[in-house]
């Protein structure tokens, strides 16, 4: 009898732990990957919810100042304006695939806490002007 109660207790504990894991832990901490189109479709519901926004840094949209970086993340249909206060990585440039982590603000600007360049597996030589040799020559000129 005592053994049965113990086993029952164990089962209840495990089931309780499982439920807590699923509903308490997991669902609260999901981060969704979205494209600009998906983010815009969500409308006001997207405001304040942390997501990862992936797309291309739109041509002509990147402005770096002392305190902040402004640019737009675009897919084929829509663009989202992004503002961030972190220093972008070296290769962060227009036309590159990027993922930014943060949330849409009330002013419809996306405040990013992390800027990541998409690490493609495909190898592509660096673009003109970004070639190591040219960087090298410029550094030597000083």
């Amino acid at each position, binding site marked *: 009898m005592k053994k049965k109660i113990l086993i029952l207790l164990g089962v209840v504990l495990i089931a309780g732990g499982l439920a807590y894991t699923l509903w308490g832990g997991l669902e609260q*901490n*999901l981060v969704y*990957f979205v494209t600009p189109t998906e983010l815009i479709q969500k409308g006001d519901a997207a405001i304040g919810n942390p997501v990862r926004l992936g797309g291309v840094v739109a041509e002509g949209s990147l402005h770096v100042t002392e305190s902040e970086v402004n640019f737009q993340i675009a897919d084929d249909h829509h663009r989202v304006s992004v503002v961030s206060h972190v*220093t*972008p990585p070296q290769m962060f440039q227009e036309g590159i695939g990027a993922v930014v982590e943060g949330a849409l603000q009330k002013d419809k600007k996306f405040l990013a806490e992390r800027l990541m360049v998409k*690490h493609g597996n495909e190898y592509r030589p660096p673009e003109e002007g970004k070639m190591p040799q040219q960087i090298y020559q410029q550094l*030597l000129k000083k």
Partner: protein
Amino acid sequence: MSPLITIGNGCIGLSVGFSLLGMILFFASRRTESSSLAPLASLAAWGRGSVYANFILITTANLAKVYGLLSNDFGISYVAHVGSLETPRWISAISLWSSLEGSILFWGWILTTYAAVCIYIYRDRDEKFFSWVGLTLLFVELFFFLLLALPANPFLPVIPAAMNGPGPNPLLQNHWLMSIHPPFLYIGYIGFTVPFAFAIASLLETGEEWISWARPWILFAWSFLSMAIVLGGWWSYAVLGWGGYWAWDPVENASFMPWLTGTALVHSIIVYEKRKMLHSWNVMLAILTFLLTLLGTFLTRSGVLDSVHSFTESHVGPYFLVFIGITLVLSMTLLLWKSPQSQEQGKVQSLFSLEVLFLFNNLLFLSFCFIVFLGTLYPLIVEAIKGQRISVGEPYFNQMTVPIVGMILLLMGIGLATPWKKGSFRSFLNLSLKPAVVALLITGCSFFRGARNLWLMVVIFLASFAFLIMLFEVARIFRQQGVTNLFATNRRRYGGFVSHLGALIIIVAIAISSLYKKDHEITLQKGESGQIGRYTLTLQGITAEQAAQRFEIKAIVQVSEKGKILGELTPQMNFYPMSQQPIGSPAVRSTPVEDLYLTLISFEQDGSKVSIRAMISPAVSWIWIGGVLVMIGGLIAL
């Protein structure tokens, strides 16, 4: 066509044949009586011969591959894929495991080595039992040889031979740790195949002794896996430049899950040896651990995850899924069908006994594993069902696992003061009162030194409690027996102490470094200084150099504290010809108290200005030290 291709494929093809043949021989050998006078006459001896043959064949294939890499034989697909004329030779040699096909080949080598050593050591033992062991090992080998023969063939011809190759993934040629992390991981991971084979054999042939046979193999594999996980964290810290060592990344979790069940197993085998309890439970854990190593390999190698370990698109995924499925179904069927026969002799006499605490330990490690499993696979399941891409954030893992680690720490302490069978409250108090008081004092001191986080206090208390109980026991032995070789007294117990000490150090170091890490960004003109914590950083200049395989930009930063120059750090950025993005190399000044960690974020092309991310993480180097202790302890206890 390169002769190496013929050699390599010949070896792989033959070993597929030998695996099949050996399995048949082992299976048939159970029906014949063996005679020790004419060992070659027995079928099992021929079965063992196939295991040795596979070892020789796969060793040859690996040597052929390394020779191909060292001699830049671009007529071989794998070499054309990961080799290059410019790559330093030592990196070329270790490129054996820098991409999918080579890593499976290397896997095959470790596996055949394990199998050959195991079968050789036990060649005179219970032949029926070890025929099943041999059969199981060959079954696993067969799967990996089929991978090598079909979807992951490392010896495909390239016609005409390429002139040069791109070199290995830049991330993998950046640090010396790349030469030891993968072998350690493989020795750990693959080592769990042997206990698995023992467990399966124990279900088919009464081999009640299997646990004591499997014990050294379990501990050996576990020790290497423990070290490998720490080395992986170290690599991530030293190469990736984000200043951390663990991010609950699926790839890290893949190595961590079998470690968790393996750790449960390391403990539960003791219960069987001492109390003849939990027999089927041990069988189950050995099987589960092996399955999790396969799952981990599937996750990292099939390309379902986006990571440095997934290499490129590959076709091994379905093979792994089918093999995991077959292994799961076969072993679970065996477990359900056969396990009632194995008698468990011991009975729980009291709830306050070491065996019950071990049971709790096992439940905690399994829950830990389940939490990690869920967090790792949930995104894959959601993406498969709903097509929605999500990731499970770090807070999930931290929030769920910190309490479990706390409970494990608690058990670590009280377990050392609790005897088998039936504990008495009085002797428990005797053993634990002094440690508890001193642990409270230590916690109080750290509170006054500024540790104001509740969890940190709990961790410090429980860790110092567990440490002091060990310390008091060691002191008692020294008092009783003079300066004695502790490990000669009870090698297993004190080997365990060393591992536990390592684990305590790691847990405390993780707690401190994650709570008190400081992260700064600083932009410096040439000659300018900036203050980061108690350090003054001065940018002395930027250099650009063409190294053999890459182009390097270095920021030379002088570090000083209160006017005293501590040294120079050179965080750098490496440009590889075939890679679009530069790969940074952080520069770290490591002391026992804290690490100063610099990464180069960006630089002006005229060399006038750089942005640097500077992190100060306390206690990080203790994690690596702890990892070494965990491993050494496990090896002492073998």
